[in-house]
């Protein structure tokens, strides 16, 4: 350093002992170097221990070197240009430059370079203040990466959200059902166009309003309210709740309501989706169909009564000397007239069941006798078939005797129809716990596994059976309805080409 014992006298203006100054520099945690610009290649003439620590070099390896050794081979950095420009102008500068330790490890050096001028303005020294900012830089870079990643994710999410929004709204707007989304206080958040069109209301009359305040309080039904209040806490949906109401603008309608808690990846748990379906026309159509069935079968019965009567008169008045051929014709006609009568009765029963008009008589009767009577009447009609009966209940049952006879007769005539003439049919009656169980078993053609689940459906007929045996396929449906109305269950077990067993149980009251 020069002959003077003070630095930048203009600012400090206090003579200082050089030894003290060096002690200050040595104690600093910031790396400090001083170069002598008056010597060739501006060599380092001083470095403090902090600089040794940062660079990994020891003092003897530093003094006399130009500072550029710190950059190793990494010479194309733009920061170098900033430095040389500033230094050329005799100005200070701050850069963040890539430096390398003795071991070749990269570190980012925040470098502040300040020129020292003599009285004539000539630059005599440079002071370099160095800070290893690698960790700061690293975290900064990481932060930037995280930021970039976050932005990318947000963008992606936004895109996906927008797509799924569009996807959802296209469904919501296309669906022919009215939809409302509500918050936990039953305030309407959105309504689809179908809702607005159906109820002839504007979005302003709907959005933000409480469900129970909509229209003329059409949804303000205590029973519905109770169900709706259970949706959020219990996640119990409202299913097929019927509302019959005189709605403003659209008049008397029958609406079917379904409501669910909305859950989207764990979000929106407090929202409710309410779907409203106008089933007025559908129900009216159903009613008209049932009425038609009922009237048609009832009206058909009147002429049939006359036909049945005349058929029986023909049999009674059959001349002694009539030919067997003629007798056969009369007998066959009688049989098919009876069959027609049976089909009409079934149709009438179906229409009554559909409209809920089937009335079960609750009368006490001897169950064992009922079963025996049902078997006896079938035996009388088909004397060639062997029908066995095992087991008994030994007590009275309260229910609809004539309908239960119908069930047993139906199961028996099916068993007869679908099994060979020489095979036996078994009826088993037993009491199990507080239930009566009746089983009818045949050794017939059996029913395949996949058809077994459909046989109690209305108008369902087993495929190949359809070809050989005429009928409408409502017998088993009726049986099921009758047994179900008694609180019992009916089911079938079957094996192809081995036989079938039809069982039903009835709870004893």
């Amino acid at each position, binding site marked *: 350093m020069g002959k003077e014992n003070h630095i930048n006298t203009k600012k400090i203006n206090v003579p200082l002992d050089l030894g003290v100054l060096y002690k200050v520099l040595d104690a600093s945690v910031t790396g400090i170097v001083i170069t002598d610009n008056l010597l060739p290649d501006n060599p380092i003439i001083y470095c403090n221990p902090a600089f040794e620590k940062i660079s990994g070099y020891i003092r003897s390896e530093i003094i006399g070197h130009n500072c550029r050794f710190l950059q190793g081979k990494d010479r194309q950095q733009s920061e170098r240009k900033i430095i040389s420009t500033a230094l050329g102008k005799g100005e200070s500068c701050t850069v963040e430059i890539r430096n390398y330790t003795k071991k070749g490890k990269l570190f980012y050096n925040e470098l502040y370079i300040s020129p020292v001028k003599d009285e004539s303005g000539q630059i005599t020294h440079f002071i370099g203040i160095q800070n290893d900012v690698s960790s700061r830089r690293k975290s900064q870079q990481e932060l930037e990466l995280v930021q970039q990643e976050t932005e990318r994710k947000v963008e992606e999410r936004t895109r996906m959200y927008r797509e799924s929004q569009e996807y959802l709204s296209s469904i919501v707007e296309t669906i022919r059902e009215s939809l409302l989304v509500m918050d936990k206080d039953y305030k309407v958040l959105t309504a689809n166009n179908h809702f607005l069109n159906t109820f002839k209301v504007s979005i302003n009359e709907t959005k933000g309003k409480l469900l129970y305040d909509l229209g003329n309080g059409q949804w303000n039904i205590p029973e519905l309210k109770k169900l709706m209040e259970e949706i959020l806490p219990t996640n119990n949906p409202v299913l097929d709740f019927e509302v019959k109401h005189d709605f403003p603008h659209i008049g008397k309608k029958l609406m079917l309501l379904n409501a669910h808690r909305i859950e989207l990846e764990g979000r929106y748990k407090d929202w409710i989706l309410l779907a409203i379906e106008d089933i007025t026309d559908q129900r009216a159509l159903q009613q008209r169909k049932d009425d038609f069935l009922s009237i048609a079968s*009832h009206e058909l*019965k*009147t*002429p*049939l*009564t*006359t*036909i*049945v*009567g*005349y058929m*029986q*008169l023909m049999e*009674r*008045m059959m001349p002694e000397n009539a030919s067997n051929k003629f007798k056969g014709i009369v007998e066959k006609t009688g049989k098919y007239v009876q069959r027609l*009568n049976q089909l009409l009765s079934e149709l*009438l*029963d179906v229409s*009554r069941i559909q409209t809920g008009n089937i*009335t079960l008589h609750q009368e006490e009767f001897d169950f064992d006798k009922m079963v025996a009577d049902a078997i006896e009447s079938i035996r009388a009609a088909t004397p060639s078939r062997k029908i066995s009966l095992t087991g008994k209940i030994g007590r009275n049952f309260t229910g609809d005797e004539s309908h239960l006879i119908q069930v047993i007769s139906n199961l028996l005539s099916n068993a007869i129809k679908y099994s060979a003439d020489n095979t036996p049919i078994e009826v088993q009656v037993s009491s199990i716990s507080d239930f009566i169980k009746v089983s009818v078993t045949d050794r017939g053609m059996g029913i395949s596994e996949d058809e077994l689940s459909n046989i109690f459906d209305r108008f369902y007929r087993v495929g190949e059976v359809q070809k050989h045996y005429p009928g409408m396929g409502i017998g088993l449906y009726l049986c099921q309805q009758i047994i179900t109305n008694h609180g019992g269950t009916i089911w079938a077990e079957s094996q192809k080409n081995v036989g079938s067993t039809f069982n039903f149980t009835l709870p004893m009251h």
Partner: protein
Amino acid sequence: MKYKKILVCDDDQGILEMLELLLEEDGYQVVLEPNSVNALKTIERESPDLILLDIWMPMISGDQILRALRDNHKISSIPVLMYSASTDGKNIAESCGADSYISKPFDLTVLLEKIEELLKA
């Protein structure tokens, strides 16, 4: 025993004729009334031993006729057998005081048995 008079009231001509044939074949005297509006007058005039009465008829239904009949002391004791194709026919017949009931289409043997039973009583 035979030659008893049976009045049949039904709006359906086919059933009337069929029943007429059956009943006459079985030795009964038969009176037919196709118009329910005239039923009570005809019953009073003919005073039959038994009435066969359809339930569902236009204008005046069978149960209305039966209620009126039971309120008219001149004819109130005539036994009445009701019939119908309707499944609740039996309930209706019981509630308005019919002596017996049979559902359409009827088995002629059963019908004749029921008629004989009512006439014996």
